[in-house]
């Protein structure tokens, strides 16, 4: 009697935990994997500096794909200027934290503060971009975002007094340390923050409105959804987080050039991850990004005679997924989970 009571109690506690995690957007498996990734760099094969760097790259890419999928997967507009928004955040943060006297502007604020300024700046441009794309759909919206991205990149290239143009600028680092581990926890925290925030938004009524707009804007308008509000909100939030990630990039790598950060091909990399991970899931990109970065870095270090092979694989995978399996990894997961469940029910 007593033992069953505790069992019941245990069960409810477990269920409470699960429902709490669900509300934050994690399945128990997903949360377990997150914990695993979080403790990983403390154990031997993963505690080597270069592996931690890979993990950082993975988390950075994962977080980008979440912010990207928030627009592409829900309101069905591909933000082709995503990398430029990220770069805008990076440059803004870098400039505000800048201490180099020979540039026009050197306030020398702490990077911890400036990444938020960068994020706000990117969010502002995202807001404007959202307003610009209001009347446009599908390909036109994508092209508009693309053109805005090109214009931003050109601007950064030309405002040499602020950014040193193509020469690149060197923002200060978050922490003066030879270790990569602190940076890993910074980016991991950012990733979780972005994921949980966006998942909460998507899980609320706003998310439903996004999906309605993404599927059919006219029908959404007819059923009383104001597309203007939601579109602009979506763009702003996505751009804000892109800018935040840009701030991380700036103060982690400590070197910014327009072409390595803001070029369209950078957007394509994020797009590939988000699509392979599965559109409209947010978490698909995260699960794909880590193994992907490991695989790519493995290729790069073992087949250094073939530079750029990993990018070709990127492209081929993306094309194959788009033609033959548009649901992506998250679609595959749901399919497999349903199969497993059906199997258990039978026996």
């Amino acid at each position, binding site marked *: 009697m007593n033992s069953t009571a505790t069992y019941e109690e245990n069960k409810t506690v477990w269920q409470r935990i699960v429902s709490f995690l669900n509300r934050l957007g994690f399945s128990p498996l997903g949360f377990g994997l997150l914990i695993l990734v979080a403790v990983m760099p403390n154990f031997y094969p993963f505690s080597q500096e270069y592996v931690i760097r890979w993990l950082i790259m993975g988390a950075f890419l994962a977080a980008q794909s979440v912010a990207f999928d928030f627009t592409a997967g829900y309101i069905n507009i591909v933000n082709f200027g995503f990398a430029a928004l990220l770069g805008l955040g990076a440059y803004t943060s870098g400039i505000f934290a800048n201490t180099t006297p020979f540039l026009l502007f050197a306030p020398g604020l702490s990077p911890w503060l400036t990444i938020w300024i960068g994020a706000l700046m990117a969010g502002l441009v995202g807001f404007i971009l959202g307003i610009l794309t209001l*009347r446009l759909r599908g*390909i036109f919206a994508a092209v508009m975002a693309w053109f805005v991205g*090109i214009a931003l990149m050109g601007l950064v290239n030309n405002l040499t007094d602020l950014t040193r143009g193509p020469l690149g600028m060197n923002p200060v680092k978050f922490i003066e340390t030879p270790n990569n581990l602190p940076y890993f926890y910074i980016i991991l925290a950012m990733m979780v923050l972005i994921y949980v925030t966006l998942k909460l938004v998507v899980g609320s009524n706003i998310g439903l409105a996004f999906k309605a707009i993404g599927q059919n804007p006219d029908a959404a308008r007819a059923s009383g959804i104001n597309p203007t509000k939601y579109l602009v909100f979506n763009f702003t939030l996505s751009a804000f987080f892109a800018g935040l990630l840009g701030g991380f990039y700036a103060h982690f790598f400590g070197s910014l050039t327009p072409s390595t950060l803001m070029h369209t091909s950078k957007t394509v990399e994020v797009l590939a991850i988000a699509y392979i991970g599965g559109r409209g899931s947010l978490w698909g990109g995260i699960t794909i990004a880590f193994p992907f970065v490991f695989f790519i870095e493995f290729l790069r270090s073992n087949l250094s005679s*073939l530079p750029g092979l990993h990018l070709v694989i990127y492209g081929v995978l993306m094309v194959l997924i*788009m*033609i033959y399996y548009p649901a992506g990894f998250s679609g595959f997961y749901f399919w497999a989970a349903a199969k497993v469940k059906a199997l258990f029910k039978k026996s």
Partner: protein
Amino acid sequence: MATKTSERPKTSVDLITRLKDNLPVVLVSIFSVILFILIGIKGGAPQIFNIIVTGGMWALLATGLALVFGVMNIPHFAHGESFMVGAYVAYFVFTPLNQFFLSTGSKLLIYSGPFIAIIAAGLVGSVLGIIIEKLVFAPLRHRTKEGWIMNAFLLTVGLSFILTNGTNLILGPNFRGIPRYFDVKPVEIMGAFIAVDRIVAAGIAIVTIAILWFFLRRTKTGRAIRAVSQDETGAQLVGIDLDFIQTLTFSLATAMAAISGASLLFMFQAYPTVGVTPLYFSWYVVMLVGLGNIAGAIVGGFIVALLQSGTQLFIGLSWQSVVPTVVMILVLILAPSGIFGSEVKGIQEQ
């Protein structure tokens, strides 16, 4: 979308209303003429000729883009990569050929070398187009037509990624260029010395566009292409083989981009990402005149070249990509379907 009214106003009183209806076209024409005059005053004959060369090339590229969009509804992002392939083919054909021809010493052979290279680029381009269409777009078309425009766009993005990085992998990031195609003195036109290469490039652009125009207007296959671009189902009903037409269109567009890449080899050296600038500018053209508008693309090519040249002359070389982009953003806001309006199926739906 507003349909053009069929009754044409005849009297001069109605002219004003007609102008009002076509306000974007009028504004752009006035702007272009003013810009042209200003450039003519400041830059003189060389600058004007420059506009003709680049304008012709952008027109050639944009016609391909418009053709692919009009017939297949594909917003082609890998168009610049076709340009890149053309440049590479021309380099690898021209360099050894020129060596050989120079050793024979025959003037006729030497002068025919560049043309052989450009034709070879066109041929390779058309084959590449067929391969891409059969390998990438045909499977997707047979799987689903839902959300086609966006899916096709992202596929071409992936393609461009593969082609750029594949070239980088195989041939390396080196620049491969030639100083000039024709080793002769520049020709004097209106007091300015203009390289023969430029004249030939402009000539090739004009001839290719003319041939395409003739093909689309006067031949049975060309008419079939236009029929598909107007109404796919209707075209199928009268017995047009859609698969064939679509493959042909894609192959044509790729070949045209390759030809322009080949004939501009003296300006754009061949390297993996050489296609980016041509891609940008050909997209500016099609966004300016309306996606899928082939006739408009020819005019648009010259307008964009004017804009580019004006930026170079009055603002500075490094702003070359910023100013046209901002103008195109304005065009997208004010007239999303282009200044001439596009009468192509299925643009607004998806």
